């Protein structure tokens, strides 16, 4: 069904986004209530209002903005779930799916702008969940200095900073939802910028420390250049096809008999933009700096939501626009294959010796991008291989792979954010600059340490945790497309069987080897926590909400591994809508 985006029916489908907008407004208004001068957020500008004097006691509480944003996100999730529905999938326990709804521009010749289907809805849910966890974790986290005091002025400043921070979070969330829904490359890009610009600020938010500003500058400069390059590539595509609608681009691409220079350049440059988002080698260099300079919740956001944005873009471009229906190999296949192997290996090797836990997590995040890229490559192999799927009962391999990527992006929220939250909790005590902060954590905080270990094992892909399921699904997909041809051939011996595999099979091998390498540094964290002695045996400062988030993440990590039924089906459903109704 297609609706006008600004009509009543159309707006109805955008309820979650509206909730975010109203959240932004609420945040703005409530924190200024009672003040004679209304402060513009993120600035020191104050506009004199007609009424009032000083702010009230209750709305100068530094925790208030955080609470507001948390409730906004919870409400947004509720709205999101409420908008799900239809005849086939009204049971959320069974499957997370939505009817496909297309929102168009106003006018006589409407253009499809946004598509609401299970793909976009699932991604929205992911964004909201990530943002919810991050905002919950930063309710009373981002003080101006590490020693909170009851001084009113300090509180006021804190409150101001908190307003700014959560406002940025909400705005970023708005951008993310647009990315998830867009049917037009430019809209996608606008959403991406809307999501990224606040993140640049958030990375630099730690402005009291040298590292924070440095990270912000580096991340901003590199990010801006990457997205500019990406945008230039997009403009080349526009020059070539005359439209940035995904459907038009797809059709034009399919109609292209011989590869032309312009679209190839365009696609390549566009990939740079998204490559930066997912921090693929060689666009990843700033990632460890940014992660280590930014505060941990922001780094968590970079590692999950921001990466997810990049993957949405990649899926749109690679899976919809440039994937040939049959026959030829996708143009990006070899390039991406090489990049994926380099990325995962680089990430893991670099993480291996990293002494800063945040940098280590950053490198591990790079490696995980490599795994998912490898999965994307396999999709191309499926399309170009001669293997005809005997699809009598199961889903297509390609859906399995995309579903696996979606699954992985989803579960990353639980264990990647969880890991950063543990670091965040450590930061409440002192700066986390090297591994010694983790020393002896198990003796100080057994629960936190155990959770951290669970996150690490999940990142390494140890069963039965969530990280294992995602890797398992990915590899299954890759192996399926790479090996089915040769394995059903009963005539040949071992060596031909092995050599007869499509080369993407070695991507699976590469994932396995890399998992083994990665285990080294993930386990090292566990060893540091459970083995090394710390200087103190006192527990960490008590920050209940952080603990709650960490425990929630840990339980989710375990639960999504042991009982991933719902999520697997939803992810695959989402993957299939990516292909079917474009």
């Amino acid at each position, binding site marked *: 069904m297609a609706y006008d985006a600004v009509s009543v029916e159309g707006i109805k489908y955008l309820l979650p986004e509206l909730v975010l907008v109203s959240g932004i407004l609420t945040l703005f208004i409530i924190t200024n209530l009672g003040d004679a001068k209304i402060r513009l957020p993120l600035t020191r500008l104050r506009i004199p209002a007609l009424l009032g004097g000083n702010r009230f006691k209750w709305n100068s509480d530094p925790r208030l903005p955080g609470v507001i944003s948390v409730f906004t996100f919870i409400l947004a999730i509720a709205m999101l779930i409420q908008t799900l529905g239809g005849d086939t999938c009204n049971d959320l326990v069974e499957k997370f799916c939505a009817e496909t709804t297309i929102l168009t521009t106003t006018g006589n010749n409407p253009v499809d702008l946004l598509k609401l289907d299970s793909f976009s809805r699932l991604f929205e849910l992911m964004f909201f969940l990530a943002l919810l966890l991050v905002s919950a974790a930063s309710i009373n986290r981002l003080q101006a200095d590490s020693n909170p005091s009851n001084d009113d002025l300090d509180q006021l400043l804190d409150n101001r900073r908190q307003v700014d921070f959560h406002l940025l979070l909400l705005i970023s969330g708005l951008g993310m939802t647009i990315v998830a829904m867009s049917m037009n490359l430019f809209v996608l890009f606008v959403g991406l910028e809307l999501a990224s610009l606040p993140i640049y600020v958030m990375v630099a938010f730690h402005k009291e420390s040298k590292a924070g500003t440095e990270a912000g500058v580096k991340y901003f400069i590199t990010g801006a250049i990457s997205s500019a390059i990406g945008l230039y590539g997009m403009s080349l595509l526009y020059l070539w096809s005359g439209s940035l609608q995904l459907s038009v681009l797809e059709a034009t691409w399919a109609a292209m008999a011989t590869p032309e220079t312009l679209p190839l350049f365009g696609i390549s440059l566009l990939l740079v933009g998204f490559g930066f988002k997912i921090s693929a080698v060689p666009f990843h260099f700033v990632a460890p700096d940014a992660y280590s300079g930014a505060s941990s919740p922001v780094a968590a956001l970079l590692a999950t939501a921001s990466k997810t944005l990049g993957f949405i873009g990649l899926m749109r471009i690679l899976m919809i626009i440039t994937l040939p229906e049959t026959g030829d190999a996708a143009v990006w296949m070899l390039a991406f294959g090489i990049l994926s192997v380099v990325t995962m290996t680089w990430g893991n090797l670099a993480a291996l010796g990293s002494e800063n836990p945040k940098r280590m997590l950053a490198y591990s995040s790079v490696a995980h991008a490599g795994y998912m890229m490898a999965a994307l490559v396999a999709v191309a192999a499926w399309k170009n291989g001669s293997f005809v799927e005997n699809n009598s009962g199961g889903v297509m391999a390609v859906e399995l792979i995309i579903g696996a990527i979606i699954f992985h992006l989803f579960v990353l929220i639980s264990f990647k954010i969880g890991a950063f939250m543990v670091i965040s909790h450590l930061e409440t005590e002192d700066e986390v600059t090297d591994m010694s902060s983790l020393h002896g954590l198990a003796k100080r905080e057994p629960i936190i340490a*155990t959770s951290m270990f669970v996150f690490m094992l999940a990142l390494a892909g140890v069963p039965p945790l969530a990280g294992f399921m995602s890797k398992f699904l990915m590899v299954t997909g890759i192996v399926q497309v790479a090996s*089915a041809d040769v*394995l059903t051939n009963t005539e040949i011996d071992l060596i031909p069987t092995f050599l007869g595999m499509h080369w993407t099979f070695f991507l699976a091998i590469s994932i396995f080897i890399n998992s*083994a390498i990665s*285990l080294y540094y993930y386990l090292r964290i566990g060893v540091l926590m459970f083995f090394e002695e710390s200087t103190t045996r006192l527990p960490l400062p008590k920050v209940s909400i952080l603990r709650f988030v960490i425990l929630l993440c840990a339980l989710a990590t375990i639960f999504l591994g042991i009982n991933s039924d719902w999520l697997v089906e939803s992810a695959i459903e989402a993957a299939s809508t990516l292909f079917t109704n474009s």
Partner: protein
Amino acid sequence: MAENKLNDGMYVIGGLFIAIAAMMFLSPISLMEDDWVTLPLIGLPILGSLLLMGFSSAVPAWRKESISETIKYASLGISLIVLTITSLMMTDILMNVHWANITFNQYMYEVEYNWIESIGAEWHVGIDGLSMPMVWLTALLVPVTIITTWNEKKPWYYHPLLVLMGGCLIGVFVALDFFMFYVFWELTLVPMFFLILNWGGKERKYAAQKFFIYTFSASILMLLGIIILYLLQDPSTANSSITGRSFDMHEMIKNAQQEVILGNIWLGAGTQKLLFVLFMVGFLVKLPVVPFHTWLPDAHVQAPTGGSMLLAGVMLKMGGYGMFRIPISMFPHAVVEFQMLLMIIGMISLFYGAWVCLGQTNLKRMVAYSSVSHMGIILLGIASLQPLGFAGAIFMMFAHGLISPMLFGVAGAFKHHYHTLEIGSMRGMAKHSPWLGGNMMFSWMASLGLPLLAGFVAEVAVLVALWFEFGWWVIIPGITLAITAAYYLWSMQRTIFEGGENTQPPESLGDEKPKDIYLTEKVGLMALAILIVIFGIFPFIFFEMMSGYSSELIESVLLDEISGRWG
């Protein structure tokens, strides 16, 4: 501060309850009438130990001592319940089961629940003549280990970890679903990792990581095999699965026997070999065989007594068990093709391991290498492709599962009471610690294959089978038997005996007086010793079912391939 910790523990317990409840709610795992495996054998130890550990973590540090006895007894209680149930199973009391007469690929106590329906993973458990001894062994070793290492440090985590380990191991042995099998396979690493890391020796950090990474890396290849096998199925096998396939081991083993489904040969020669290699790498590293063995000495030397008892007793057997359950049952062509290779690897492990033992100065290291050597015998039994060889290999798994815990228990007691593991650092243990010396001698004698002790039957069976298949190759195991005797006796002479009128305690003891083993250690070790004797004199208690299983396996899987070779 103390208050704070208590709250955290409550979180955990509450969270666990919620998690369990959620699992119950979302996947219908419930204790049904005939399900004696899921909850009693796996659920009870795993959940119980997690609860115990959660409870311990909730107790503030200064009060932990006061709960340690409670935790110990609770752990022991759980493990004894498991032992009781498995013993009842073994003795056919629970259900009237004739373990020796089960046909191939038929399982007792079999139950199936949906687990992760979307990919076709099921909670599918069952026991047959192959897994019953292993399950019983596991169930037995956990309480024995708990008793033997009753006085270990930090018992509030240590003993529940042992119980947890036991639960995971039983999970491996009863799993009839590849997914479940793999999950439990890897899950066993975690408690062992912690056991080594927290209670181990000086180099425990290195050893724990090496152990985990090494075996994990190897089993990743096994995972690849599982995935390929999964994908090779007809995609209309499982309706509820989105891929249309399932992980059902039972079904796949059956299909592998039929060879032809949907008009195609299901597993071609090349595919079989590829899968065989992938699975075998995982199992051989776990077993372990030369040259993939170097994780074992490090892990064993560093692991605490209880850890190495379970590690050597059951964890190594996972490799052997896996070989029988998957590659041999499913890829007959590859088995026959690779027979010679297996034999050579087995020979190398056996022979080389024994020589390395001879050159060791560390007692635990020597015992660890003797495990490598003995695991070679398992491989030889498999390579023989004889019912007797198979049965011998399985019995070797079982017997070594009794003997090696005793070896490590004794070595651990030695370390504990004498603060050293150097062979030859002392003389005359028989005088200072007659019980320790006696147990040490007994276990070493059992390990070198003395008749009427458990290991002998297995060795003889394997050697006979080996002769049938390979003839004069049997000389090498023969020589190894002599070398084995040599290194044990040499060590015995330099540790237990000698010393003259005034025997020399080791220097590491300082001014302490040498002590004998505690009552708990005595009880644990004697229990093992008695079992070793019982199964040495009456091997048929288990040998019958092993032999039945082996004959069934050969007849229904391998016979065609083997006779094909004869022409």
